[in-house]
Each structure stands twice: as structure tokens, then as C-alpha cells.
């Protein structure tokens, strides 16, 4: 189970495996329809997945393909087909929004405005450590070991960092802004088409 995965207990079993009393039931990480997860399950390039996510037809196609692998996905994930369409829609919305945002920031009309904004932001660390810390934490959000402060130790961390305690006042609960990322275990037996699955990289697709 991935470091970022949230524990989920089935109240009817009280955490016990009904088939093997005394032994705790295995808790599977939830399946999230991220481009990386879809890419692993469907053995498609991430770019191709993102392109498909942008259209209604593309999402329908992805849904159908994923459902063909429902049993395998369920072996390693808490997979809820009833949530899948909405997840694909939400991810597709984000893909489109990101494309528009990046294009807007580089558009000839706004390039100057954004250049000025970026220059300001680069000078933020001294003046606005909270904004800077949040940006960096966003960058780290997918890193497995970062979970210790993204999930449970915010208050302790903030108490040790001058000025950062304000984050709590400003944001109430930072984990609301930076959610734990679920792990994406490879499917059993390698890839779906019997090609060995790659090492899962939870969260951000940061080149290493």
C-alpha cells in the first residue's frame, strides 16, 4: 500500500478478515483515474491518455477499456466503477484547464504581465514565506516520504518554522489543499498485456 494511501475500514468487519478471523483484512488503496494510473493500466503513453481525457468520446473510450480490466484492478485497488465516470470527467476538466492556463501564460497578449508576475513570485521566499512554502510543498506532494508532514505533522512542522505557522491560520487545514496522493501499484502479473509493469511513481510525475 502506498504511503499516501488513506486507510479505510469496513465497519461490518471491524478491520478483521471475515474469511480468516483474527487476521486483519487487507486494505487496498483507492483507484484514482490519474493519467499515470490510466497509463499503467491501459499501457498507453501518458500524453495519449491526457489527449483522450479531454473529450467526452475519449473519456467514454477510456472508461470502456478500464472496465475490461476491472477484475485485475480490483486485485490491487479499491475500485468503484460507479465513481469512475466522474473521476475521468474531473481529470479531463483539469487536463483542459491546465492546457488553457499554460497557453494563457505564454500568450503574446499576457506574456509581459505573467513575466512580471513570475519575477515577483521568485522574490517571494523572503517576503512571503508562506506562499513559497506552499508552492514547494505542492512540488513535493507526490513524493512518498513527504507524507509525514503532509498528513499528520503540519502543526508540529509549522511550530518549528518561523512565520510558517500563519499557514494554518490562512489555510485552516493545509491537507485540504494538498491531498495525500494514492499509490498506483502495478497490476498483478505485470502489465495488462503481459508486459511487465513499471515501477509506480505515486503522485507527481517528476522526472528522476
Amino acid at each position, binding site marked *: 500500500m502506498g504511503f499516501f494511501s488513506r486507510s479505510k475500514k469496513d465497519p461490518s468487519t471491524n478491520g478483521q478478515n471475515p474469511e480468516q478471523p483474527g487476521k486483519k483484512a487487507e486494505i487496498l488503496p483507492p483507484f484514482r483515474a490519474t493519467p499515470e494510473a490510466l497509463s499503467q493500466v491501459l499501457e498507453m503513453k501518458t500524453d495519449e491518455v491526457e489527449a483522450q481525457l479531454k473529450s467526452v468520446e475519449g473519456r467514454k473510450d477510456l472508461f470502456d477499456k478500464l472496465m475490461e480490466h476491472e477484475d485485475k484492478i480490483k486485485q490491487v485497488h479499491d475500485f468503484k466503477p460507479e465513481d469512475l465516470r466522474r473521476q475521468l470527467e474531473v481529470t*479531463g476538466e483539469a487536463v483542459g484547464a491546465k492546457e488553457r492556463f499554460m497557453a494563457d501564460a505564454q500568450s503574446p497578449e499576457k506574456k509581459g504581465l505573467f513575466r512580471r508576475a513570475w519575477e515577483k513570485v521568485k522574490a517571494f521566499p523572503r517576503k512571503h514565506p508562506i506562499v513559497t512554502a506552499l508552492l514547494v510543498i505542492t512540488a513535493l506532494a507526490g513524493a512518498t516520504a513527504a507524507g509525514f508532514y503532509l498528513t499528520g505533522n503540519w502543526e508540529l512542522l509549522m511550530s518549528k518554522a518561523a512565520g510558517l505557522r500563519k499557514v494554518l491560520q490562512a489555510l485552516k487545514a493545509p491537507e485540504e489543499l494538498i491531498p495525500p496522493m494514492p499509490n498506483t501499484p502495478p497490476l498483478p502479473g505485470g502489465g495488462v498485456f503481459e508486459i511487465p509493469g513499471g515501477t509506480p511513481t505515486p503522485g*507527481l510525475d517528476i522526472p*528522476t
Partner: protein
Amino acid sequence: MAAPLWLTAAERTIFDALPAPLQDGWELKEETLAFTDTAERRTARLSLVRLHDQKLLALRDKVQKATSPEDVASLLAEIDLRDVTEGDLAELFFALGPDALTRLITPLLREAKTDGDLDDLASLLTIRHSLLESFSSQA
């Protein structure tokens, strides 16, 4: 020329309460776009982040090796964004999202004391406005 201040109605109220000399000279625009964030939406945005900056990647590695919140706090205190590319900054702001920016903007606006403070805010407001437009547009 300073960027306009894209303020929501609530933020406009805070701006109007600032000292009059500080309010002078700013172009105000009403931010009418809205975006309601959810855990699912944040997860989706985070899953799309592609970073290339070596410093950020190195910092990530250091944080992974850190064993205590104190270590992480000292790493955060050493952050230097000067060499981070504009593309990577855009990636991070997209992942953070307009809702989180709003939560940062409100206290910064309330505490603004100089034109420099408002100029910093103008940058965040420009970024937020573009993010809101991006989420409001239909593909």
C-alpha cells in the same frame, strides 16, 4: 505599469478599508469568476504536474531523506526560487489552484501596508484570474 487588481466582492471590501493613500492609483477589476475546489479536483491537478527544475527535484530528495519536521522546516527556510523556470512556477500554481490562492490572498490583502505589498498581490491576482478563466472555459 502595475497589473490590475482582480478582486472579488469580499476582497474589494477589504481593499476599501485600507488607508486611502494606499488605495490610490490602482486599477481595480471585479473578479466574478468562481471555482469550488474539491479533494478530487486537487488530486487531479496534482497528478498533472510535470516539473523539470533541478533545485526542486534536489529539494524533494532532501525532504525524502529528512527524518524530522525540524529538518523539513530548515529545508523550507532555504528555498530559493530565483532560478526556477516560469514553466515550473506555472505548473505549481496550477496544482495549487485558484481556491488555495484565494485563501492566501485574503490575509495578504488585509495586511497590505505598502504599494509593494499590493504589487505582490497583483501578481497573485493575475495568476488566479488566469486560473479561474482556464477552469471556466469550456473545452
